């Protein structure tokens, strides 16, 4: 049997093992050194993963949980009042279903749930499945080096962004127009098949939310708030978004569900849909007041 039973192979085995454990040590030191730097991410996909990981670790401390798409993902937790304990589970490229799928298994919490209704998509089962089967999820609690937020390159970005904070980028009128026109074109129609599909999704969401409310009535009331994020009137008044809002209000009537009246103000967007960082900060600071 030739399974590495030779002096040279044993030597290489020790070189391999020695290097591996040295890296583990170095990685741990780096994590400790950078723990006070704000969490960062390399890309949107990793941002979503980090949100899920982070929530798994601190779900019991979340008093407010925000769920939705990239529209609400822009409401960074640091924008909310410090003592409000907000956990933002909104994820770019997804909708509230992914956040809800993580909550379904969660223990009872004294929480307020804010659910964005602008973008409602099918649950990305593959995304949730991949996350729950990832090494990071399964072993991250024991070995934090495996967590996405602690990836070596992510730590490097964490250091660089902490040391050299990036300047806030302003969207040029050109950039705004480019994406605004795309969104406008995409939202100019809404077929009956899309309408039926969205209605089904909204009903599914309603069932999940009602089921969660039932689970919590014995201990604590779970407060659920529905949110329609402000958008540019040019998009708000398109066929698709008008229809989406109408369907959302039909499936979640105001008499039975808490619809948040978003704070008054002129909200600037980068593309008609996504708030600018400045607007997101102001919006977040006022959102909880609107709920309470």
């Amino acid at each position, binding site marked *: *049997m*030739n*399974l*590495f039973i030779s002096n*040279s*192979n044993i*030597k*290489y085995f020790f*070189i*391999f*093992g*020695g*290097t*591996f454990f040295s*890296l*583990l040590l170095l*990685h741990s030191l780096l994590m400790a050194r950078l723990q006070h730097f704000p969490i960062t991410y*390399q*890309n*949107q*996909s*990793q941002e979503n*993963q980090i949100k899920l990981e982070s929530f798994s670790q601190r779900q019991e401390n979340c008093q407010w949980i925000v769920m939705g798409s990239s529209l609400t993902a822009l409401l960074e937790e640091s924008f909310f009042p410090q003592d409000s304990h907000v956990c933002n589970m909104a994820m770019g490229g997804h909708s509230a279903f992914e956040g809800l799928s993580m909550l379904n298994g969660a223990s009872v919490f004294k929480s307020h749930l804010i659910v964005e209704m602008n973008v409602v998509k099918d649950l990305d*089962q*593959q995304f949730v499945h*991949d996350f729950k*089967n990832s*090494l990071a999820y399964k072993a991250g609690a024991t070995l934090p*080096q*495996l967590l996405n937020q*602690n*990836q*070596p*390159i992510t730590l*490097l*970005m964490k250091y*660089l*962004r902490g040391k050299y904070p*990036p300047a806030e*980028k302003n969207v*040029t009128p*050109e*950039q705004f127009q*480019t*994406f605004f026109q*795309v969104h406008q074109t995409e939202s100019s129609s809404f077929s009956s098949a899309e309408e039926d599909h969205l209605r089904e999704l909204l009903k599914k969401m309603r069932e999940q939310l009602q089921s969660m409310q039932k689970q919590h009535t014995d201990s604590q009331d779970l407060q659920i708030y529905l949110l329609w994020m402000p958008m540019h009137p040019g998009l708000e008044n398109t066929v698709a978004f008008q229809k989406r809002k109408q369907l959302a209000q039909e499936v979640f009537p105001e008499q039975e569900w808490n619809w948040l009246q978003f704070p008054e103000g002129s909200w600037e967007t980068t593309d008609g849909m996504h708030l600018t960082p400045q607007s997101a900060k102001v919006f977040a600071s006022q959102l909880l007041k609107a709920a309470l």
Partner: protein
Amino acid sequence: MFNLILNIPFMLFNSWPYFFLLLSTFFIYYASAFRSLQISTLIVASFIFYAYSNPWLLTLLIFSIALNCIVSYYITRSGPTQAKFWAVLGVVVNLAVLAFFKYTPLIADSLSENWRHSDGLGHFLTQIPLPIGISFFTFQGISLTIDVFKERTGPVKSLKILSFHDHLLKTAFFKAFFPQLIAGPIVKAHDFYPQIKPKYFSDIRWKKSIELLIFGYFLKVVLADNLKEQTFWISYPYFQTLSSVDLIVMLVGYSCQIFADFCGYSLIALGSAELFGYELIRNFNWPYISRSFSEFWTRWHISLSSFLKEYLYIPLGGNRKGPLRTYFNLFIVMFLGGLWHGAAWSYAVWGTAHGVLLILERLVSGKLNQIFSWVPETLRQAFQISFVLCCVTFIWLLFRLPHFHEAKLYVLSIFSHWHIPMGKSRILLNAIYCTPVFAMHAYVLMKERWGFQLADKWKWSLYAVMFYCILTNSGNSSEFIYFQF
């Protein structure tokens, strides 16, 4: 479309089901009780691998196995005329099946809009799904048919067909062997069949297998999967708001991504096959250090270019029938090679572009070498490598943006977006994940040119670094780019 029926993705090499399949197959394969059933064990594992997301796909694979087995068997049992008939039939039916699934939607899509959107045949033809791996196992079937036909009259007999049952098992194994089933390398029958014999645990080349697997997974899950997130912004319309520097860097990033993705997959396939005692053809030989386009095609997707050379270019006459015929042959081979990659005209254009470059190279390289003979060799080679890399990188755009107007817009944006501020994070991350690709190429260049060789102890340190990165710095799992072909 098929995989949506069960909503289960295909079994990726970097997934728990694959690890479970590999390990369980490995233990059964080498158990002494199952030694006589080694081939059957691998066939069953391969069927499980292929049918994981959609069992219906197996019907096509089994049909392909049966077709090629019957055709190749009767080639050996028939007289010369009938053998030729069987060989032609085999090749034609293989190509017809491939063409039906792969190119019918493309052709149907090119016809009138009314016909396409009407219920019935028009709509059906535009919706035909592309079974995963069909391009690869079909080509392997063609290889088997032609090799058996050639060996009828040739001196070498590497494909001994003893009985129909024995041949059926070997054919099923050859075509379905799971490491190379879905995305190659395209294995030739005369290379693979002589390896089919009992394998023993003591003969496993552990060092080679582990090296291949670590390297493959590093390229795929660390480099390719992370680069995929950075090159996402090449998509329309996102690139329209990015700076020229971002656009160029992302294109280079995509070039590294496609190499890391495909080469990584191939290395994992080779490493997995080694565990079972089989040596597959190496598919990449560091293509981005090529000094010419013809050299590029001896280093990139070697199994495909070797297949096209042996079964298409040489039968067409190769370079033996004068320069004009040679250029024609090159053009046809590259055009078809491009079209093999995908059922979209952009792939045909991609292949044609390479064909044109190969022809131009033949026309002018001799003269250019004369004109620039005064330039030091090292500088000349550096220029050649850079030139080939730039051209190849540029043409990859057609893979990433298959719609011509988007690709054209991207190129125009490169020239007109200099005033837009750079995205420093995006550029930095692209650079970080491209660096290992270029570093590896540079190492191989030094090794080939100056005989520079890294000591084994450093190699094993590097493998440890790669292994650590696989565990701690993997990107979001995604399908291999070449799955779509």
